[in-house]
């Protein structure tokens, strides 16, 4: 069996691992690195639960092989903030009830974090567009939209 020595930066930390070609990036993060914040829902790109930042841009970790992440930088939900010190986007989701079961939340948080960097002052349509690729079966999205608005305010106040 072919294997590769891979070096991947995840949440600022460099990891060296041996991977076989068919290992998905999502499974690499969860099984090899123990970063189970990245959730796996559908494995065909629809649900968005597995979204991470790949070189700063949101991407589906279920639609990439770990072998392709060599020398790339990944940020997962664990890299956004800590339990003691939540990222402003996480804090906003907490305050605005932007989650219920939380299954969709990691993918939404990573997606929204990148979105607000590009577009710090979005209107409601832009917000709904930005999270259009993230399915949530609990909230009905209203509180998620509220949370993104609140997150934008928090981030702007920070600057």
């Amino acid at each position, binding site marked *: 069996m072919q294997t590769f020595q891979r070096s991947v930066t995840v949440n600022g930390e460099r990891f060296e691992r041996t991977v076989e*070609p068919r290992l998905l990036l999502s499974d690499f993060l969860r099984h090899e690195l123990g970063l189970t914040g990245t959730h796996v829902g559908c494995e065909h790109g629809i649900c*968005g639960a597995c979204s991470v930042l790949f070189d700063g841009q949101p991407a589906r970790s279920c*639609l*990439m092989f770990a072998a392709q992440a060599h020398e790339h930088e990944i940020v997962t939900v664990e890299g956004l903030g800590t339990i003691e010190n939540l990222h402003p986007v996480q804090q906003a989701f907490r305050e605005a009830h932007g989650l219920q079961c939380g299954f969709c939340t990691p993918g939404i948080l990573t997606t929204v974090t990148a979105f607000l960097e590009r577009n710090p002052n979005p209107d409601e349509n832009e917000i709904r567009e930005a999270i259009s690729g993230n399915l949530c079966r609990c909230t009905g999205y209203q509180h998620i939209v509220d949370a993104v608005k609140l997150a934008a305010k928090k981030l702007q106040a920070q600057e």
Partner: protein
Amino acid sequence: MKPAPFEYYAPATMDEALALLAEHGYEAKALAGGQSLIPMMNFRLVQPSVLVDLNNIGGLAHITPGADGSLRIGALTRHNQVETSAVAEQYAPLIHFAMQKIAYPAVRTRGTFGGSLAHADPSAELPALCTALNGRFRLVSGRGERWVSADEFFISLFTTALEPDELLAEAEIPAMPPRSGWSLMETARRPHDFALMGVAAVVALDEQGRCADARIVFLSAGEKPMSAQKAAEALRGQSPSAEAIRAAAESAAANEIDPADDIHGTAKFRRHLANVLCRRALEQAFQRAAGKK
């Protein structure tokens, strides 16, 4: 770990990639953005034994205007690169406009122009748009290169003129003549989903305001991009009146598409959508051609 095992190669040059494809033939698949191939591998709908990853090959991602007003788009150009390109907006406004309809932001950061064409999903936007715009594609292999028109490239469901040892290197979209207009109309259950029905119209007017040329191409309407040539031909030389447009849309939807009957929608419903969308698309395209936005 769901895909079946395979050997993985990530060559740094086109020549190496082509040599690998020539060596492995039908066993091998190119990997571009992975946004169509990896879902199919995860479900084991396809089990290639060799993957040739194109992502480390330089020079395949570019958006290059030509002196004649045409635009070349490299195979590995990501959807979001086209979406945010002012050059694409200027030279190929229809393609630029369509980008926001293709999948979701996190898919557009990976999915590629060439991958969408090579995949040849009849529900995808780019195959239909390149057909409507008279685009052509540069295919390369160890044997040489050839240009193939979009009309000839798309053969059937997920089937193109690409030979197993060939790669699509770039697409060329010709300049639209003066007094041209375009439109893309779609109906999807949710924005960004594959459309239940869609249609692109590209038209040009002569100096008297009559239709000089029209191209009408449907997506999600058959086994490949469905070009309504008879309806388009009937418009030529006519003034684009409401009646002429209505007649073209009706005959295209009735005679020149072959929509599926499935859980997402009946064939009858899809034909109805085709008629309405085609009428609206032609109206908008002719308005744009006449300089009315």
